[in-house]
């Protein structure tokens, strides 16, 4: 087989892929606009330093960014192909919307991260950032927004809630230095739970920490059980569990089913409060959470914020293909050299004016409308052909069918 000219990890999107992509995008836009959010788009290239501070991306994520020296980068300061959309959106808000106390922003854009082998390195996200709003209203609103988008796409999402403060409280209580806490937290973000064993060894009476937190439980009841067991050992854990309980209680009240998964935080250091992940079956299709420290880290204001992103590439294969079919009228011209082609285009213009989808073909082939010597031979829905010489008559026939 000939080697592809396509760059490794990159994907061509074929017409079917684009149809699904647009369906997700339009549904998401409709929902986001409906909840009062405004659309933005951030640049493809950003400064690398936006993403390197502690409290932004985890080192494992940073190892996968595409960074380089730009054509004017003789200073040695690198730029990066956008690996994440939240941090650029916070930068946009801090720089371009400095007069606003709050903002509801959404975007549909790509992120680029290196992946091994042939795995996709470009991903598309539908994202929302709620800046300047406070807990727990913002967290609950975002969960409802994500849920509505997925439901309108015909998908029944399963929601899992977590809180990075749980792990942070344990690391802090274990008497680790700030530097060691950050290093161990990054390991947990990368999916390595061994640091919890180190914490267990340092905290008397905490032998059950790892097994307790590795469980997934149902809503408020599980949070209350965790609080009862862990608070005597680590009193500081009460605060994050309390925040999680507030969101959980509100969702329970609205009948929104969800699970609690304490160690579900991954890859992003910037989360500070309740986080959620959305699954369809076993496939993770999106997630987000509260990042109250990021606005002050990137800009100068201290504002609470939260956000989420839905993964278009994960959602697209789950959509029902039948929903993408749309009726297209093919106008076929057997003899494109004469006036018939002009007639075919005249009919196409008339049909477009009534929002009908058209396709003009010529030469060998067939269509619902065939133009022969100036006349239209119309055969719709497998019916017997009818001959028309008047364009309006054809438009009426198509509209009726």
């Amino acid at each position, binding site marked *: 087989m000939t080697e592809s000219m396509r760059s490794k990890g990159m994907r061509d999107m074929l017409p079917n892929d684009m149809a699904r992509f647009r369906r997700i995008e339009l549904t998401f836009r409709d929902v986001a606009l409906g909840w009062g959010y405004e659309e933005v788009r951030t640049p493809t290239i950003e400064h690398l330093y936006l993403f*390197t501070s502690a409290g932004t991306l985890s080192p494992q994520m940073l190892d996968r960014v595409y960074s380089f020296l730009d054509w004017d980068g003789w200073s*040695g300061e690198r730029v990066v192909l956008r690996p994440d959309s939240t941090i650029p959106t916070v930068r946009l808000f801090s720089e371009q919307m400095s007069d606003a106390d709050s903002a509801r922003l959404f975007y549909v854009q790509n992120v680029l991260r290196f992946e091994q082998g042939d795995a996709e390195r470009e991903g598309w996200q539908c994202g929302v950032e709620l800046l300047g709003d406070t807990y727990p209203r913002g967290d609950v609103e975002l969960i409802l927004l994500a849920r509505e988008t997925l439901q309108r796409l015909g998908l029944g999402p399963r929601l899992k809630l977590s809180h990075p403060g749980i792990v942070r409280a344990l690391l802090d209580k274990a008497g680790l230095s700030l*530097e060691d806490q950050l290093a161990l937290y990054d390991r947990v973000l990368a999916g390595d739970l061994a640091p919890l064993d180190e914490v267990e060894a340092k905290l008397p009476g905490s032998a059950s920490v790892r097994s307790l937190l590795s469980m997934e439980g149902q809503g408020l009841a599980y949070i209350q059980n965790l609080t009862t067991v862990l608070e005597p050992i680590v009193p500081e854990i009460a605060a994050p569990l309390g925040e999680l309980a507030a969101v959980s209680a509100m969702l329970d009240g609205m009948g929104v089913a969800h699970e609690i998964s304490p160690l579900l935080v991954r890859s992003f250091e910037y989360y500070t409060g309740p986080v959620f992940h959305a699954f369809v079956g076993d496939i993770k299709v999106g997630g987000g959470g509260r990042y109250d420290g990021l606005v002050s880290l990137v800009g100068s204001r201290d504002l609470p914020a939260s956000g989420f992103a839905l993964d278009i590439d994960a959602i697209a294969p789950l959509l029902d293909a039948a929903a993408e079919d749309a009726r297209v009228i093919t106008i076929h011209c057997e003899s494109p050299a004469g006036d018939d082609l002009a007639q075919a285009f005249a009919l196409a213009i008339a049909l477009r004016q009534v929002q009908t989808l058209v396709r003009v073909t010529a030469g060998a082939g067939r269509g619902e409308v065939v133009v022969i010597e100036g006349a239209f031979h119309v055969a719709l829905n497998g019916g017997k052909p009818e001959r028309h010489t008047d364009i309006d008559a054809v438009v009426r026939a198509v509209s009726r069918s």
Partner: protein
Amino acid sequence: MIKLALPTGDLRTPVAELLSSVGLQVEGYGEGSRQYRLNSLSHEDVRVRVFRERDIPIQVALGNYDIGVTSLSWITEMNARFPQQPLIPLADLQLGQTILFAAVAPTSSSVGQGSRPDRGGSGNTLAALPTPVRIVSEYPNIAEAFARAARLPRYRIQAVAGAAEAYPPEDADLVILAAPDEATIQTHGLQPVLRLLDNSAWLVANAASLANKDLTAVLTRIREASTPSTSGALHLPTPIAITKSNGRAERMTDTLRLAVPDGHQQRHVYGALAKAGITFDGYEEKIFVRRPHSGIAGLDVKVIRPQDMPQLVALGEFDVAITGLDLLSEHLFAFPTSPAHAALDLQVSQYNLSAVVDGELPADNLADAVAYWHRDGKRPLIVASEFAATADHYSRSRHFWRYQVMPIAGASEGFVPEDADILIEGTETGRTIAENNLKIIDTIYRSTTCLIARKDAQLQGRRHSVYNELFGLLQRSVA
């Protein structure tokens, strides 16, 4: 056949002695030899090629060579940026031992008296560095890994060809460099803050060659000479939590800063300065100190590698520098909007930058050569050069279909035809080219030695008058 890549430079003699001691003699590989392609006397199936140390990990990773011997620091430098490369470090040969340190100028307020470089801490030192942190190193990928591990909120890496120790405190805040010990670092006026790597010559192999080829004829013998060693792991700093931006001390604004080169350009530049009636105490035809005395009020002089000057002039770290047009062009091909420009041609050390190919190639011009290479399909052309950005620009503007630029550090005549199709190389008389059975197929431009400056510089007061005096003396000397 086993293809073995061996180092030139300082490691050449000890590696030759080691090979000889285990019965793996390589004809012509030893002290004083300048041959690049050699055969093993004891093993007829072993072919040897001599490279600069930093080129060996690239050549072995590409699979052009099965086994190599090079410093662990260069293997680590490659792995820091490209961890997926099929490059397997096999054994420490305990030769050419140095230590890779991170060091700062001791004037930094954070460095306590008698502080020792450690394996992971150093957080206070790093947290006190000015923002953005200017890191200088011959190892830019390790420097990048260092900055990311420390979670520096803002930094820039100055990749230099050498003399990294000369940069702090004026031109860098932190330096990553190799030295035999701490005391050597301190003789440069620097304070080590972190010991990053215990460096020595290692045996390294290509993963596919290890998996598919019988390499025992070489591996067994070289392994005999190796001893159990440290892990070879790179020790990076733990994250620091910076809560504020630290300012940088203001630079003296009434002093003109001039950079002059060491290396092969030194005698030419010394000669050009002498012809203009300019001499510096500590910068002569063959000897130098890093900070010579200019003897001119308001003129500071520093000796650094000529490769690094265009970037430093563009940044404003130096007002003027004397370097090659080839190196300025290389910088401008990489950064077309850079303000560095040639202010005056000193008309010394002139040569052509040429495209060089195999002498047996049945083509006399570039178009015929490309047609020949593409006669069986458009395979990627390999363009090797010490001037990677120039080679990239050349290949792009000549519309090669698919090409790969292979950046090399030296020993360049040995790359064509086995490892590359084209070499972008400096040529003077053409004798070396002919001796290596190569030929010039295209002349790209003629290089010369220049006084370079920022074209948008707005020098004031004494700085301006010193520049005019320096420029005038040099201009009159070449008129």
